[in-house]
């Protein structure tokens, strides 16, 4: 799926890197026109500067973060497809030409922390504002029998609660975590889909954004585990189930288990980031093929393929948001599993068995407890 096409995109961009002369200066103007109807609508170089970029550079420029937002509009007195709004100017940050130091109201700690919003930050704000608008407008008319937008919002929230939260966390604890899971799911979904709109960018294609989301999940998971097991129990599980009699294994187990705590958020980060970047990269590579090969006849094959990838990207956006929320719920649920250890009688069916996992299973991978406690 995505990875096959990401490989194709990589090969194409490797090929273009070699021919620096290939993307001619007319790519700057022609690209904006040709891509206008297409999946991207990505305006390329601004009309003011004619840079001789290779295709790889143009692709990286579109996918990565920056301080300029491009939009179609009137600038310099005439209509252009890619007027630039420089965010540094908008927020008053001045970068000294010689030293490269930044100064301004949003630069803190003497130039070390630059809080000037970048393109992806602005996209996050817009996605958040959109999500808040939809949610708040939807719940304005509350009634027991939902109608209209409220009904729609309720269907989605109920889906997240029943399919994701209850199945992975269990019936009685799901409501504590449903707000976070709903937020994560919809925020990621909106950000992903927002990147497919022309002239907008995918905020989740930025490693910092996905790292922040994974850190939220990590903090919630560990906090939940500590709350349900106590600090002592939590630390005891860092030994990985190795009993006290084998204490000399602990210096090996504990660092490994500690590092193992971080692999899951790391995987969450990279999975979301790479899926989003790969989709955009493939579209850009396919459309850039038109310019790299120089003829317009390639467009007959290239544009439908790019359209197909675009539809795949919509699907991937949905799936990745779902996967992120589901894995977050799974991690939270596996931290909660010791909650019902002591009072089995009432809680035998309380814990969800996700994918065949035993309800009173220990969190140590591979250990399957015997079901003797059921027969009590």
């Amino acid at each position, binding site marked *: 799926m995505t990875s096959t096409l990401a*490989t194709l995109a*990589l090969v194409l961009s490797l090929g273009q890197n070699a021919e620096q002369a290939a993307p001619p200066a007319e790519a700057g103007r022609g690209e904006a026109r040709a891509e206008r109807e297409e999946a991207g609508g990505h305006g390329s170089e601004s009309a003011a500067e004619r840079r001789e970029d290779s295709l790889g550079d143009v692709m990286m420029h579109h996918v990565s973060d920056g301080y300029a937002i491009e939009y179609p509009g009137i600038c310099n007195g005439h209509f252009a497809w890619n007027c630039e709004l420089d965010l540094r100017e908008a927020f008053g940050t001045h970068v000294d030409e010689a030293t490269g130091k930044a100064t301004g109201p949003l630069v803190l700690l003497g130039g070390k922390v630059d809080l000037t919003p970048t393109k992806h930050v602005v996209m996050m704000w817009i996605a958040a504002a959109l999500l808040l608008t939809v949610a708040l407008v939807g719940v304005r008319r509350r009634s027991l029998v939902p109608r209209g937008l409220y009904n729609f919002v309720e269907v989605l929230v109920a889906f997240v609660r029943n399919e994701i939260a209850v199945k992975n966390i269990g019936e009685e604890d799901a409501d504590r975590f449903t707000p976070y899971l709903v937020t994560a799911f919809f925020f990621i979904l909106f950000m992903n889909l927002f990147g497919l709109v022309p002239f907008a960018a995918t905020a989740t294609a930025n490693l910092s954004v996905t790292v922040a989301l994974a850190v939220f999940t990590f903090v919630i998971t560990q906090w939940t585990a500590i709350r349900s097991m106590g600090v002592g129990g939590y630390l005891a599980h860092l030994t990985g189930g190795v009993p006290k009699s084998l204490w000399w294994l602990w210096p090996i187990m504990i660092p490994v288990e500690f590092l193992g705590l971080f692999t899951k958020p790391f995987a969450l980060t990279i999975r979301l980031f790479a899926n989003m970047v790969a989709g955009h990269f493939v579209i850009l590579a396919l459309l850039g093929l038109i310019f790299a090969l120089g003829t317009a006849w390639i467009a007959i094959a290239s544009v439908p393929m790019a359209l197909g990838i675009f539809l795949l990207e919509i699907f991937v956006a949905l799936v990745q948001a779902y996967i992120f929320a589901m894995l977050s719920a799974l991690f939270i649920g596996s931290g909660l599993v010791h909650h019902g250890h002591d009072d089995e009688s009432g809680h035998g069916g309380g814990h969800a068995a996700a994918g065949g996992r035993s309800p009173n299973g220990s969190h140590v991978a591979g250990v399957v407890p015997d079901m003797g406690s059921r027969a009590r």
Partner: protein
Amino acid sequence: MGPNALAFLGAGLGAGLAVIGAGIGIGRLAGAAMEGSARQPTALGDIRTSMIIAAALIEGATLFAIVVCLLLALKP
């Protein structure tokens, strides 16, 4: 061969191998899903959902490799 050429070579080979892994993994997954749903058509919906989730997870692992290859290929 200079370091740039080796980096490009590594990127290309790595991406190709990563896709082989993804292809084999997802192919087997899809085959098992087909077989399972042929044996029990009533479970088709559940099998389809689980298949998509598992495919996304396998893709995630593959895209680790792709990210590394992109880092190799697109650094000057």
